[in-house]
């Protein structure tokens, strides 16, 4: 999954290839298994990965031939491995020194926001709250794979984890 890009056009390509999974199936896959694959996917070179998540590949071909008990033990082990981390740089506008944050220690946007508010001692609003942000407030933005700066919170958490390169807290009136 790590070598699949996330733009909509690629999902059409991937769904026409029988060996790869369509993006719709990404959301159908069990959430925790998906996030585990991503956690692992972020830690290694793309050459080691094949088109599908482990669960779907297994259902496709039931290969390699290992018994269900061993398979479930390994999957559990993978879920349990807490040693994977994904640190990104976080800058706040106006502060030259940035911080580093482990995204994998959070399970969603709420958790991330809480941590950032604590780290930078400021109000950070999310795009899904419809209140007009006061002048002193900030919004959280991120730089994605393509180098574009985007508002945090629009895409599902797992998707976000795959594309985020760094974070920046900017003043609300700039957006």
């Amino acid at each position, binding site marked *: 999954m790590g070598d699949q890009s996330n733009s909509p056009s690629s999902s059409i390509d991937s769904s026409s290839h029988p060996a790869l999974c369509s993006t719709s199936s990404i959301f159908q896959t069990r959430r925790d298994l998906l996030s585990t*694959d991503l956690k*692992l*996917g972020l*830690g*290694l070179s793309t050459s*080691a*990965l*094949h088109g599908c998540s*482990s669960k779907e*590949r*297994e259902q496709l*071909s*039931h*290969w*390699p*031939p*290992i*018994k*269900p*008990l*061993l*398979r479930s*033990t*390994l999957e559990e*082990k*993978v879920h*349990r491995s807490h040693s994977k981390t994904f640190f990104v740089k976080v800058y706040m506008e106006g502060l030259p020194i940035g911080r580093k944050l482990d995204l994998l220690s959070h399970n969603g946007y709420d958790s991330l926001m809480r941590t950032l508010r604590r780290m930078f001692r400021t109000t950070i609003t999310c795009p899904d709250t419809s209140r007009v942000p006061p002048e002193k407030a900030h919004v959280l933005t991120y730089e994605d794979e393509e180098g574009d700066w985007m508002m945090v919170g629009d895409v599902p958490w797992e998707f976000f984890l795959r594309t985020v390169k760094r974070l920046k807290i900017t003043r609300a009136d700039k957006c």
Partner: protein
Amino acid sequence: MVRGFGWAAAFPDEVWEHVFSFLAADADRNAVALVCRAWHRIERRSRRRVFVGNCYAVAPAAAVRRFPEVRAAAIKGKPHFADFNLVPTDWGGGAEAWVEAMAEGWPHLEELRLKRMVVSDDCLELIARSFKNFGVLSLVSCDGFSTAGLAAIAANCRSSPVHTSVGLEVAILVSVASEGVNELSLVYLLLSSADIPYLRNLRELDLHENEVEDNCLNWISHFPESFTSLVSLNIACLEGDVNTSVLECLISRCPNLKTLRLNHAMPLEKLVSLLQRAPQLVDVGTSKFSADHHPELFSKLESTFAGFKHLKSLSGIWEAGPTYLPAIYSVCESLTSLNLCYATIQSPELLKFVSRCKNLQRLWVMDLIEDNGLIAVAASCKLLQELRVFPSDPYGVAPPISLTEHGLVAISAGCLMLHSVLYFCRQMTNAALLTIANNRPNLTCFRLCIIEPHTPDYISQEPLDAGFSAIVESCKDLRRLSLSGLLTDRVFKSIGASANRLEMLSVAFAGDSDAGLHYILSGCKNLRKLEIRDCPFGDKALLDNASKLETMRSLWMSSCSVTLGACRQLALKMPRLNVEVIDERRGRPLESWPDDFPVEKLYIYRTVAGPRSDTPPCVWTV
């Protein structure tokens, strides 16, 4: 007086029976039964053990009728590939028909072993109340039952002696019974009217890799207080918690307990207090082997294991961390069998542990042991006979580990008694296979799984034909072989020609054409089981070798190039084969499909029972 050949009548039946009792192998007893009618009769009445490799090969009633005095039965159901989810869950292999027939015809049955069968709770209840002297129940890779069924088994385990005054009454009545009255029926009449419970001495309850539904948490408490005959208990496959204090009571009152394999749900502290009660254990399967470090727990674990003076076999060790493994170093020296295939610990700790086990004969381990680990094993475990190395990362998501062909080559060079190998790895060379073949011509089982299909020799980029050919040519006693990697028809030519003792062959993602399958089926004199997936094998080889299929137990082919027409022809030609076409896409019934319809999965087996009556919707007997 027996009529027949003069020499057969020279001795009374009991003498022949005694002679036959020295024949353990079924093949020998079968041969004896063909000599003359007298021997056939004597042999069938004296056969005590029956093995049915395919539950559909013979009708249960027929088997029970032929051998009326059986004490131990072993029956297998689903094809081997069911272990890897290739067989639909409703395919069959139900145990009811067999258990019902046995309950009626073999009331003295003592041992029952079922593998890959669907066993319901009703079946377990029937087993619990049908066999007076039941001693051993072994369920391997079965499903369909729950802990409620186990409770029924446990509840019927009563070991109580016959009341003496009633016994006396029985003896008197028997002695005055006239010749015409069946003495035995009189005895049973008395026993049942006196309402004496059946004598039960369950010694072994072995649940190995079954899928068990957990709906009766305290099933172990159903073992009566008077039950003390347990010798072996294996509950490793149960997922739920087991009441530790009840288990402790059970263990404490069973002085003959030799094997105890627990499930992973039990915390380490509870495991320790349990094991302390049974220092006589020979075979231990631990539960979860990790916990936060507590010096107290460490020393308790250490002293418990130091107390095991007779421990030979160790398994379980789920999720082992480096913290607690050193606590059990004391048993390493005496171990002959070590199963660490659920222990996902890294190489240094793994190595430290395994290299202390100098008397190891069987080692099952994760590939986390790496080549260095295997080199160390080759140097320290000189008595090693069986090695299995499992993949810790089968789907290739984590960084690759350093387990390659070098590890296996080192083992083949250092372990002179090695005869059985199962090895998962990601790369192989023909040269390595050649070296292994030359080092270990005594191999009887060689199963190599190169994880990525169609992987060639990574140095020469050639197919691995030469390597596997060397294996079959050098290892004359090879009985089981699994192939992998890039392979052409050439390897099948060698196998067909050289693998004369081969009984089971597993093939996946190999071959170029029908010629490959033809080489196998026209050679391999002793082939019993052939299982093939994702190979370009088709109709011609099957039809040209139709008669070979009746000499084998079974053939499985999935994702190959067989058409329905060939299956129809085969079924017509060979009435004593069941040709089962399995298609889970369903839709129209089989009859309406054309001859060129591609068959998704095919299972062919010889049988004297005709087509089975319990096929599910996705299976058609052609």
